[in-house]
């Protein structure tokens, strides 16, 4: 291509478009810009509304645990830690499960079953988070309490599982498990798509060299799909960070920085907003907007990185056959 450029003088074609086409191009370009604009507006408006609270809170907004905007003591550190813990619990469960499920669908499942299984997993993604929350609260929580008790009794070497409480309900752990179920379909969908694009030539090469099916998966599909695994997990992380309803139904809000995920109560930014919203005055709402701004920024960064990684691995730029 470079040689071509050198040898041939560049030809510029002047396209004369019909008026209808010019209008058409303008309209679609406007629509696309509107999408950009909405995104910009979200950040701008949140920032503008959060400004009074941020100004009065100052840097202590990032370090304070309590959330009592009326007395001037409010900060994001406890809820932020809670949000991250829930997301971590969710990902620890969801990522291995998604990798397994995605590999099963692309490499192991009988060809006839692939479409139906994929449909069912997509359906899992379409179930409203409210339903997950209800199900987690009424069905899963009583069953997970036993698991929690076992974890404290036998795995309290790990600091996360230490707890002094005895009822094990409404914990970060349970919220994390429910969120993990919501994250799995998203992670699986991304990973499946990337795994299914693993180069057939290299897969057959591995088999021809005598690899078993697992050997082929380990040496070709997994290295090729690394971008998909990382990107899919990060997309899941973005979803887990922002999950609102399921968390706010399950968790009982407390405002203490604690890494003990089995202690009764926890918190997350989104459930803080959902639960405190209706009882806040103007300043309280401004403080909630500030919390929302932090959440927005966090998910924005995570998702942007994720989509860059996924797109790169999708385009096949990572491999040369």
């Amino acid at each position, binding site marked *: 291509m470079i040689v071509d450029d050198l040898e041939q003088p560049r030809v510029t074609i002047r396209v004369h478009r019909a008026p209808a086409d010019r209008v058409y191009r303008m309209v679609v370009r406007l629509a696309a810009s509107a999408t950009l604009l909405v995104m910009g507006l979200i950040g701008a408006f949140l920032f503008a509304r959060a400004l009074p609270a941020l100004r009065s809170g100052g840097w202590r907004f990032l370090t304070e645990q309590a959330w009592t905007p009326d007395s001037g003591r409010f900060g994001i550190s406890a809820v932020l830690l809670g949000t991250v813990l829930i997301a971590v619990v969710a990902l620890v469960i969801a990522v291995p499960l998604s990798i397994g499920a995605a590999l099963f669908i692309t490499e192991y499942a009988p060809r006839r079953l692939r479409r139906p299984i994929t449909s069912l997993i997509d359906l899992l993604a379409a179930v409203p988070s409210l339903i997950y929350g209800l199900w987690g609260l009424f069905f899963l929580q009583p069953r997970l309490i036993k698991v929690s008790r076992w974890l404290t009794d036998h795995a309290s070497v790990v600091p996360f599982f230490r707890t002094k409480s005895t009822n094990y309900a409404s914990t970060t752990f349970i919220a994390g498990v429910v969120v993990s179920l919501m994250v799995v379909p998203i992670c699986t969908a991304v990973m499946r798509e990337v795994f299914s694009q693993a180069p057939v030539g290299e897969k057959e090469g591995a088999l021809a060299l005598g690899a078993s*099916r697992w050997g082929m998966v380990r040496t070709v599909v997994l290295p090729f799909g690394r971008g998909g695994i990382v990107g899919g997990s990060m997309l899941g992380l973005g979803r887990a960070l922002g999950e609102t309803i399921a968390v706010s139904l399950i968790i009982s809000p407390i405002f203490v920085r604690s890494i003990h995920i089995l202690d009764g109560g926890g918190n997350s930014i989104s459930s803080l907003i959902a639960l405190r919203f209706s009882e806040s005055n103007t300043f309280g709402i401004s403080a909630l907007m500030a919390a929302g701004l932090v959440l927005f920024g966090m998910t924005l960064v995570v998702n942007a990185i994720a989509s860059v990684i996924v797109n790169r691995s999708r385009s096949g730029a990572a491999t040369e056959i």
Partner: protein
Amino acid sequence: MTTASTELRIERETQALEDRVRFRRLDVDDAMPVCGAGLSAFCLVWLVYERLTPLSGGLGFWLSWYGVFLAVHWLVVRERSGPLAAADRLATVVLTTAGLCLLVPLTLIVGYTAYRGWAALRPTFFVKDLRYTGSLSKATDGGGAHAIVGTLEQVGLAVLISVPLGVATAVFLNEVGGRLARPVRLIVDTMSAIPSIVAGLFIFAVIVLTFGQNGFAGALALSVLMLPTVTRTSEVVLRLVPGGLREASLALGASEWRTTRDVVLPTARPGLATAVILGVARAIGETAPLLLTIGGAFVMNADPFHGKQDALPYFVYRLIRFPQNAQVQRAWTGALVLLALVLVLFVIARIIGGRGPGHAGPFKRRRRRRLDMKEHA
């Protein structure tokens, strides 16, 4: 969200190549060790778990069984065919478990919601509101008609806003392109995972603080959430339209606008319908943005532009927090109706979207037949 069309594309692209290698199907040699290991692990765990050690509990039992099963299976295959084959079989078993594990929660969620919601589901749920129903009335009194109407209006308005915008953006990304395309694609990708509560906060800051809570504000919040879903899915669908069709149309002298309107969009119609339906399925269950925007109501308010309105997810979210059993029961009924709506939409999307571009559905086939007959006559 990956759609049927994406699958279709991938399947098409890979099928031709993929068909070359076929693995041995599961045969007796593979199946026997699995069954044997399962049985022996069951016996061993039962003996140790229930008889020899002071352990109890169903979950612990089955987890130990699974662990022992994997170990026994690995050892058996290792004795028979060596360590490489053993690792291969072990991976097969573990990955298959992971795949099937995912179907368990789906069954449990749908089953449990149906079980809890069915008890108080009466036809009156679809016609009455909660005007004369208090916390102490029977669970079968009143209904969620006001919430259903609210949901339909809000989602309908959201569709009216986000579908033209989303499809136009997709057309821009795919047919026009240019320097703007890259940032727009990145932003759409990023936006698709924006926390729903943040969308609610945004609309609250822009609309609600000046105009108050109403159904239209809820619709705007939902359309912020639908927009990226619709755009991304439509873009994938438009990419599936064969370039030859476009070139043929342009070569015949059609303008770009005519090409898009008369060739590209009609070809992609089933896929676009899928995109819209998937967007609707996502929007219909969203609760968080509605918490901040619609206000909630117990009586019918069919006007989305004035006054507070209710929505099905909001109805459920509010009633489930009541201490009275009747209210909780009502909430479960609402949840069942909501889940049924989502499932129906999803199935419709799958049926429409399962076909590729250019596939003639029953309507198109009938029209073609009619045109044929006209020609002959």
